[in-house]
């Protein structure tokens, strides 16, 4: 088709904000954003331009989809401990992977697990008082960014959720107070429409846990011997607590990916416990940001189908969850996996980690096969080439993804079902 087609209210699956207000046009199967896309989203759609010929490969040689599927099934058939990793896919793709992985005893790990675990470990140990996008947009009069600027990873965060015009609660949105705590790159977005600048309270992100714990102690009426924590004066922390208690609805926003240091879960836990205590008197909630590369999507499906979050092995026939043991890198380093299926639907730069074990890659347009990949199968992109579902950062909203153009490429769901059929045939022998 070469006719020019226009689409509106399209969901964008290229970061965890999952904006669903994009307008796009499709001409000659090329997708171009016409409205509301951020540069990253626009570039991502443009990067999907069809390539003249991308064929499945087995051992570096072009082949048919059928042959590639058979080769993939054979690798799994010969494997005792297969690893299903990457896992950036839509709901249907993840459902198919779970069905196959359960049958063949795979271990599941997502490409973003390292950062996702920082929140998960807190959930399983003590929990959260959290909120979602529309609540921030309509209620938050004080937003404290905890070691993140939000926009470096989620470009339209302020445009959509902070400097919106109207609110349901009577809140004057332009009067919201913005505070950055920790290390941040870009504070431009925090400048209010009338030019009011945000407050910066600097410390290293490694010190954020101590800072939250000190605030918690002060809130509980404890006297601290120290005059400063992480380079921040106690008086400044007291002032911040006064602001929180005067606010109607404080939101602490963090991105676990930005808290990239050893045992960052403890910093997040300190914050989560502070938020709980603040809620004894006034309202306050956390907003963890994530969801990019479908990490929330994959984890949601994995959790409802198995009862456990990702980093679970089905090798024993039962789901065994172990968040440290089943990391992709650890399994590869210790030769505890003998085949890898890597699935990557959204970011062509996320290639499978180098390894000596047979590797099957289901990769999006623009991903180049490498010599490490025994089988490479190019796949369609959910939300461009086929319909599907993608979870937003706040875990509540699963956005419908649309088919925008025709493609000959199969979806992850189709490929995985085909691999399963072939595998069952070989396995029955």
């Amino acid at each position, binding site marked *: 088709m070469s006719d020019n087609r226009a689409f509106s209210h399209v969901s964008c699956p290229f970061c965890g904000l999952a904006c669903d207000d994009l307008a796009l046009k499709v001409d000659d199967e090329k997708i171009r954003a016409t409205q509301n896309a951020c540069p990253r989203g626009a570039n991502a759609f443009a990067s999907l331009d069809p390539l003249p010929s991308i064929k499945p490969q087995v051992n570096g040689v072009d082949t048919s989809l059928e042959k590639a599927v058979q080769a993939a099934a054979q690798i799994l058939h010969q494997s005792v401990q297969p690893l299903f990793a990457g896992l950036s896919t839509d709901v249907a793709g993840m459902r198919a992977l779970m069905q196959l992985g359960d049958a063949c005893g795979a271990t599941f790990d997502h490409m973003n697990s390292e950062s996702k675990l920082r929140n998960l470990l807190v959930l*399983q140990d003590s929990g959260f008082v959290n909120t979602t996008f529309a609540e921030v947009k*309509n209620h938050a009069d004080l937003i404290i960014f905890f070691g993140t600027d939000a926009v470096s990873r989620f470009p339209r965060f302020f445009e959509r959720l902070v400097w919106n*015009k109207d609110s349901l609660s009577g809140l004057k949105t332009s009067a919201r107070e913005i505070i950055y705590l920790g290390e941040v790159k870009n504070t431009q977005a925090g400048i209010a429409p009338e030019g009011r600048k945000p407050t910066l309270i600097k410390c290293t992100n490694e010190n954020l846990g101590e800072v939250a714990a000190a605030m918690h102690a002060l809130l509980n009426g404890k006297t601290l011997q120290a005059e400063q924590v992480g380079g921040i004066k106690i008086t400044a922390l007291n002032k911040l607590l006064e602001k929180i208690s005067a606010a109607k609805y404080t939101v602490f926003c963090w991105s676990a990916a930005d808290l990239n240091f050893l045992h960052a879960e403890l910093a997040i836990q300190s914050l989560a416990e502070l938020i709980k205590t603040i809620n004894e008197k006034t309202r306050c909630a956390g907003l963890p940001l994530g969801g990019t590369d479908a990490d929330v999507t994959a984890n949601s499906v994995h959790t409802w189908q198995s009862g456990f979050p990702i980093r679970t092995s089905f090798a024993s026939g039962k789901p065994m969850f172990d968040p440290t043991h089943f990391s992709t890198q650890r399994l590869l380093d210790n030769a505890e996996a003998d085949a890898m299926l890597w699935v990557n639907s959204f970011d062509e730069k996320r290639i499978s980690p180098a390894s000596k074990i047979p590797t099957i890659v289901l990769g999006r347009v623009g991903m180049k096969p490498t010599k490490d990949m025994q089988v490479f199968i190019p796949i369609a992109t959910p939300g461009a080439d086929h319909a599907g579902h993608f979870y937003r950062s706040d875990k509540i909203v699963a956005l419908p993804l649309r088919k925008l153009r025709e493609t000959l490429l199969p979806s992850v769901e189709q490929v995985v079902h085909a691999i399963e059929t072939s595998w069952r045939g070989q396995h029955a022998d």
Partner: protein
Amino acid sequence: MLIKLAGGRLIDPANNVDGVVKDIYIIDGKIVASPGGEKIDKEYDLRGKVVMAGAIDMHTHIGGGKVNIARAMLPEDHRADLVERTKLTRSGCGHAAPSTLTTGYRYAEMGYTACFEPAMLPTNARQAHMEMGDTPMVDKGGYVMLGSDDFYLRMLAAKQDQKAINDYVGWTINGAQALGVKVVNPGGISAFKFNQRKLDIDEEHVHYRVTPRAILKSLTRAVYELGIPHPLHVHASNLGVPGNVETTLETIKAADGLPMHITHIQFHSYGTEGDKKFSSGAARIAEAINQNKNISADVGQIMFGQTVTASGDSMIQFKNAKYGSPKKYVVMDIECDAGCGVVPFRYRDQNFVNALQWAIGLEIFLLVNDPWRIFLTTDHPNGAPFTSYPRLIKLLMDKTFRKEQLAQINPDAAALSTLGSIEREYSLYDIATMTRAAPAKILGLTDRGHLGVGGAADITVYREDADREKMFSAPEYVFKDGELVARNGKIVKVVWGNTHKVKPQFDRGIEKQLKPYFDKYQTLQFENFAISDDEMCECGHGSKTLLHACRKH
């Protein structure tokens, strides 16, 4: 294919059949009249067996965001109940917050053929349907939550007329592909976002200046006037609060004589008498149900042991988090739409409050006269996991067992309860009513919950056993839409069940208000809110959606 179930003893309250020995014939998943001399393809000898329609759980939290939070939160609970894959079934885990697959298998193994998720948030309805879609064996459906969503509260505050409210409710049900409407702590979930910590039935929401009573009246009427078979499903104000029996009695009054279903009423039947200021209000509640024929209720029985409470009631769950065990919880404000709270809980028989809660639930079961208006639930998993149903049935059917159990609980609680003096025992006919005929009737599922000609062949066959717990744990045969799916408590065939829903008519003019509301305040586009029929197919393994008629009054 013609199947004959020969010689079983039928207990089918919907057709006034109590213990009649009769053959059942099945063609293409439906119960048919005797086909005369036609060749029988498959015959089951059911002589001496008890035959009932498949059981229906009308209130069980099996899908949606809060259930998945509970799953992710509780690896320690799952590890004690891991489920191994078989050639036929998938692996997973059970107990308090089971995986979707295990949920379906275990319900079917117990003779249940339909389960309804009662708390489907409009903005989270897609997930609820996807999880239910991954729940095999049983039919599913959801009640969409309204009453703390800002759009509705604004309408009420602006005193919009009942017709506009009805249109909004109709629009939401259609968009969320729901079977009914639920209200949770009316207005309270929203009030919590404005830092209100309690909201009595006549107390005003601090921002919208509307009361729970006004919300109950308008939603009860909307559901009635839209002709939705299932009455408004009400999780009343003040859950768990001593003295809430008064709130519940006022909630019944707010129905104005229209049909209303009060859910997990055990948690809403507490008085303030005695030294500990906590007492049973069961007698007053049962009396009110007996007197008000427009009212039905499910019990939400608690059973002792570890579970997890997962509720839309963020206001109450935040307050109750300090009683939780193990000590962890999640409370969320959600999308100007609703909220949720997930708190693990361990009910202890030696704890005065827990023991009395247990007794109060049983008192309500036994003091409500009409089994057509009281339903067997534990509010899974809030009172206990659904796998405790066979034991609960034994407590209702066997007074000796009940009295033995009563003798083991906290003695102060036992002394305060009238349970020991209640001699009533439920019959098999009563159990079949409250777990089959009555839920089908109250949900408007005309082809379920009975064994008459034209009914769907969802059929459970039990071996008689004086130990009712044993009898109801592992039925000999379970048929789903005419196929044998479980045998002696083990799955023999995996099916995916149907999704039940209603599509009430409404005036699309309401979208003139909704579109600008979404544009200004929401973070999901108006155009992406409604779940399409195609999506329902993708969500549910290609299972059928069954549409039920709405009858305008």
